[in-house]
């Protein structure tokens, strides 16, 4: 079996077996959206204006839980080390995990959209485009997030360090995702959606390439 397919299959199986954690992460994200809506108050126009930003903040906060969880099972009995000693290609292990995290975060983002629509009255007719932006933004979180989750997984302060390392790095992806989502909700009279989408695509291309190359350094010895 192709090592990448083996790694992806393993990670999807692990996610399925621990799916109750995904439900907990979704509840956390939905709760964050609810709390953000309280901060704005009952101003329908303001709620709609900030809906895109709050959706991505909720997804960003929830992503740190999901990303950290994805390495819990690797560290408990040193399973990741066991795979490296077989030997499994570290790049295959990285991309398997990163794609599994991308699918999980995309699913989480898609599940949070109806919550955003209800709480912020922020619907859009361009649902496929919104889902596309969610996938691109989730890719921007999962590529560096998987790498940093691996780096911090063995540290005592991992729950603090992961967001500290990840948040500054993903600012361009977050900016692109927030702007693109807001343009889809509020309208795009100046035709800016393409430029923000390109920013997301470029960020993803850079980090999906770079992180795969340095993962071996992170997990070996």
């Amino acid at each position: 079996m192709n090592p990448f397919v083996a790694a992806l299959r393993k990670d999807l199986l692990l996610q399925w077996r621990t799916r109750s954690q995904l439900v907990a992460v979704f509840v956390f994200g939905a709760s964050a959206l609810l709390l953000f809506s309280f901060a704005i108050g009952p101003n329908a126009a303001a709620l709609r204006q900030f809906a895109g930003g709050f959706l991505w903040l909720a997804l960003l906060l929830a992503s740190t839980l999901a990303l950290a969880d994805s390495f819990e099972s690797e560290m408990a009995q040193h399973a990741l080390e066991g795979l490296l000693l077989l030997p499994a290609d570290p790049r295959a292990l990285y991309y398997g995990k990163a794609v599994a995290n991308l699918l999980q975060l995309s699913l989480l983002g898609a599940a949070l959209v109806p919550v955003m629509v209800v709480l912020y009255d922020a619907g859009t007719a361009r649902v496929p485009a919104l889902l596309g932006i969610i996938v691109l933004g989730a890719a921007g979180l999962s590529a560096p997030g998987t790498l940093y989750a691996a780096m911090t997984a063995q540290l005592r302060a991992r729950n603090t360090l992961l967001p500290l390392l990840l948040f500054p790095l993903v600012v361009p992806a977050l900016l692109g995702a927030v702007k693109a989502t807001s343009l889809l909700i509020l309208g795009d009279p100046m035709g800016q959606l393409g430029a923000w989408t390109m920013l997301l695509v470029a960020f993803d291309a850079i980090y999906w390439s770079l992180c795969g190359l340095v993962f071996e350094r992170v997990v070996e010895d």
Partner: protein
Amino acid sequence: MTALAVETTGLSRRYGRRWALSDVSLGVAAGSVVMLAGRNGSGKSTLLRVLATALRPDHGNARVAGHDVRLERDLVRRKVALLGHHSFHYEALTARENLGVAASFLGRSNDESLLARVGLEARADDPVASFSAGMRKRLALARVLLQDAEVVLLDEPYGELDPPGFALLDRVISELRSRGATVIMATHLVERGRALCDRALMLEEGRLAWSGPAALMPAEAPGGSFVP
């Protein structure tokens, strides 16, 4: 001249400022079964982990199955199997799935007869999280057998096993010997080691204190270390 399956020269490894292995030079003949003895903290596990390429040496070098552990790590890994203190399993997956994951990375089909061989066929579809420590050790042994390695490194393999598990492990070591694999086993069960092994190596404070035929291994290392 007998070919060496494992050869180390001035091998040293430290954790922080403490040297866990210091200038260890040894040779292990291919096809032999070797006991690695020594007190807790004497460097047995570190030596096995360096030989398995789980740790890099700080000084010196080692060749395992003809390959350099620093420069040819992947080639070494293809020929070595390690049964360590950790079972290398996913707690959320079943025993069958765990073996399947290892098999898929090895490019082999999942040999489910291995679960029967280690006495886990009745629990094959239970998650590892529900296993006792002895059952985890049996599953780790099945994974080692799946690897079909030239050099097998066993780090306190009898730990957590019950008496039938002891007998199983004795049989496995005999089978490994008969198929020509080299086995290095770190253990505190010296009498068992003397009965099973051809040679013995004794470590003391990270240094090789004694080596020779297992049957002649002294109760005390030359430096005075007591072997239980």
